[in-house]
């Protein structure tokens, strides 16, 4: 997957978890909790959705690495690129 594809998929899952967000107005540097007002339950719902979509089970210790769309895209690109990764 290219970075653009990953970003599109990430934003799709994000706006599915928080349907009151507008994908067009979300900035790459927006903090999911501080700027976009997701709570911890939303974050977990997002992590579950990302696991289903990318086959990446993000451990809690890595949550800070998906704190913004830019960070998350880089993280997911890294995890899905590994040959040992699940199916990416």
């Amino acid at each position, binding site marked *: 997957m290219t970075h653009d594809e990953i970003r599109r998929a990430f934003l799709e899952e994000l706006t*599915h978890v928080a349907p009151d967000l507008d994908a067009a107005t979300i900035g790459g540097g927006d903090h999911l909790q501080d700027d976009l007002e997701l709570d911890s339950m*939303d974050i977990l719902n997002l992590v579950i959705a990302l*696991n289903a979509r990318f086959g990446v089970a993000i451990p809690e210790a890595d949550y800070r690495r998906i704190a913004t769309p830019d960070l998350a895209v880089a993280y997911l690109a890294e995890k899905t690129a590994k040959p040992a990764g699940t199916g990416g």
Partner: protein
Amino acid sequence: MSVFTMPSLGADMEAGKLVEWLVKPGDQVRHGDVVAVVETQKGAIEIEVFDDGIVERLDAELGQTLPVGAALAEIRSIGEAAAAAPAAQPAAEVVEARMPAAAPTPVLTPAPTASPPKQRVAAGLGASPAARARAAELGIDLADIKGSGPGGAIVLADVTAPATEPAPTSAAPDRGAFIAEMRRAIAAAMTRSKREIPHYYVTHTVDLGAAMAWLDAVNAGRPPEERLLMGALLMKAVALAAASEAAFNGHFGPEGFHPTERVHLGLAVALRGGGLVAPAILDADRLSLAALMGAMRDLTARVRAGRLRSSEMNMATLTYSGLGETGVESMAGIIVPPQVALVTSGAPQPMALVRDGAVVARPAVTFTLAADHRVSDGRLGARFLSEIDQRLQSPEAL
């Protein structure tokens, strides 16, 4: 024959706009069936019926803004003969005349240009609050939009301006007015609560060392969908304490306090852009931690999508409001009538606690109980918070 009326949608929501009927005269309904959808400032709410029977007549029309208690339909018991001719006139018009003063500018009234909503057969008209506000701004009927959110809910991305974009008129309620109206409704409900309920407050800090260690061990290696959040442990501890301290769980009505055995714990969820909603998780004290966690995730997702049910809006016997995983140390709240208590907590965080005469840093959380002096007093309130503390020291038993 029984009159099916608009149920209470919570202390701070006194009216809703009928946007969909899911039944028609002649249909059989059962207790718990969703028969209509109303639109409120906090998203769409599915209205459930509480009698078994046959729908005799629909008394409310689509597009009407109906206060709590307004007649929606007549339900005939099974076996009862059909009425000859409807004697009563639709009550909606009558009660509309005494719309609560809490809503000086009825924001739920359709924009002047909007055409009457169409009768639909599609199941559900859920829409997120943001989608509703945008649709109102653009003068688009939600019934004309196909939803792509959870359960077919209409989400912001689905609401797009028509090709021939009508200039937004100043008469159309904008998002700012929408939120202002919600703030007014919350203010009215909270003012009434503070006027009628003699509040007292008790605060206690709980050591979360054991709970945190247990949670980390349990979550390690679990796939995301099986992970627990600290919020579920706090919620369960509150529910169990409520089950054993009757003075904090129930409703205060005209005849006084009615404690209830079942614990339907309201969970406060903040809405983006302001406001909050606190739907109930039924029998929260009897759910396993995994089931409670699942219910909390589901509730949060449906709050975002605007798909709550009327029973969830009015059945809470006690409410819990936590500040999540990050944030300030503590928060004190205002009781949501007709409940008699509200438990709030700050964000769990390392705090300086004294253990064996020495100051140590421990993960901890500060609970605050707001309770009703008509029912209990500080001594009992202290016991309630101590009970929550004890429960959290044995997380494996939650």
